[in-house]
């Protein structure tokens, strides 16, 4: 299944099962900044055990791989599980919503982006930047993550809630990266 179709199928299933979600990662940084190729979709989900059968039944082999026990384990550990499209090689990473204050904050701030024919709930640009900086920090300075964050900053400049970003830079330990990103950014006003 092609990437847009896979995305639409996943979102439709989440909506049908009343699973609250928010798309994050490079798909959203591409929508808010600079588009780039990606083979995975990152979705933050607020999911319970009752949703497992519907997910497993909707994506069956040989075209897909998704593991019920892996979902169970992810919910228990508040970690992540994935869905693989084994014919096209695309992947959806489902991140379980945690009690972490930043996770709660960005999830509460999500908004709906309307497309032709469908809509999707996505993270706010400020949260996209913060999360990219967090990943850059955790990965030891990933060029990809930093560039993604920088482009969202440059493209969305003027509409960003800078005070919100600044309020999270210390708790997320990205203060230095944020300051440097502002120095390096060349936004147009």
């Amino acid at each position: 299944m092609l990437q847009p179709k896979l995305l639409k199928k996943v979102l439709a299933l989440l909506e049908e099962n009343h699973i609250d979600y928010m798309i994050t990662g490079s798909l959203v940084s591409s929508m808010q900044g600079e588009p780039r190729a990606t083979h995975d979709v990152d979705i933050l989900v607020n999911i319970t055990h009752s949703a497992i059968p519907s997910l497993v039944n909707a994506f069956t082999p040989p075209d897909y791989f998704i593991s019920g026990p892996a979902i169970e384990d992810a919910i228990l550990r508040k970690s992540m599980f994935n869905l693989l499209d084994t014919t096209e090689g695309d992947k959806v990473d489902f991140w379980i919503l945690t009690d972490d204050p930043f996770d709660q904050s960005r999830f509460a701030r999500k908004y709906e982006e309307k497309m032709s024919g469908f809509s999707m709930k996505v993270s706010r640009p400020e949260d996209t930047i913060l999360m990219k900086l967090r990943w850059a920090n955790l990965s030891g300075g990933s060029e990809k993550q930093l560039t993604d964050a920088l482009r969202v900053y440059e493209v969305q400049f003027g509409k960003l809630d800078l005070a919100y970003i600044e309020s999270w830079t210390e708790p997320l330990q990205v203060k230095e990266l944020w300051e440097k990103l502002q120095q390096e950014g060349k936004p147009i006003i």
Partner: protein
Amino acid sequence: MLQLSPKSPSDLFLIPSFFFLISHFLFLSYSSLLFRTLNNNIFEHEILRYCMEIKPRPNHSLYLKSLRQMTPEQRLAKVFELSRFTKELFLQGLQKRFPDKGETEIKEIYLQRLLKCYNRNY
């Protein structure tokens, strides 16, 4: 035990050489430590600069302007287009690399290689 009293004429040259080597070693170790401590932030900053400015960005503001003019939907469509294009390039590369393999085998190799990239392409 280290004997520093000269026993032969050649020892007269050895003693200053020994002190020179020791002082040289201490100087280099200290200056290296000092340099690393003082410049830690500069190094980090330089790495970040390198990451962010790995290529020159001529007409960057024009590029940003064109990105701003696109709707989120158009940018999303571009993601899918780019992803499809990279996938096609990947497959073409594999076909060139393995000209004797059939379409199914190529697809298998493609999927195996892609599996190795998942969440490791930072």
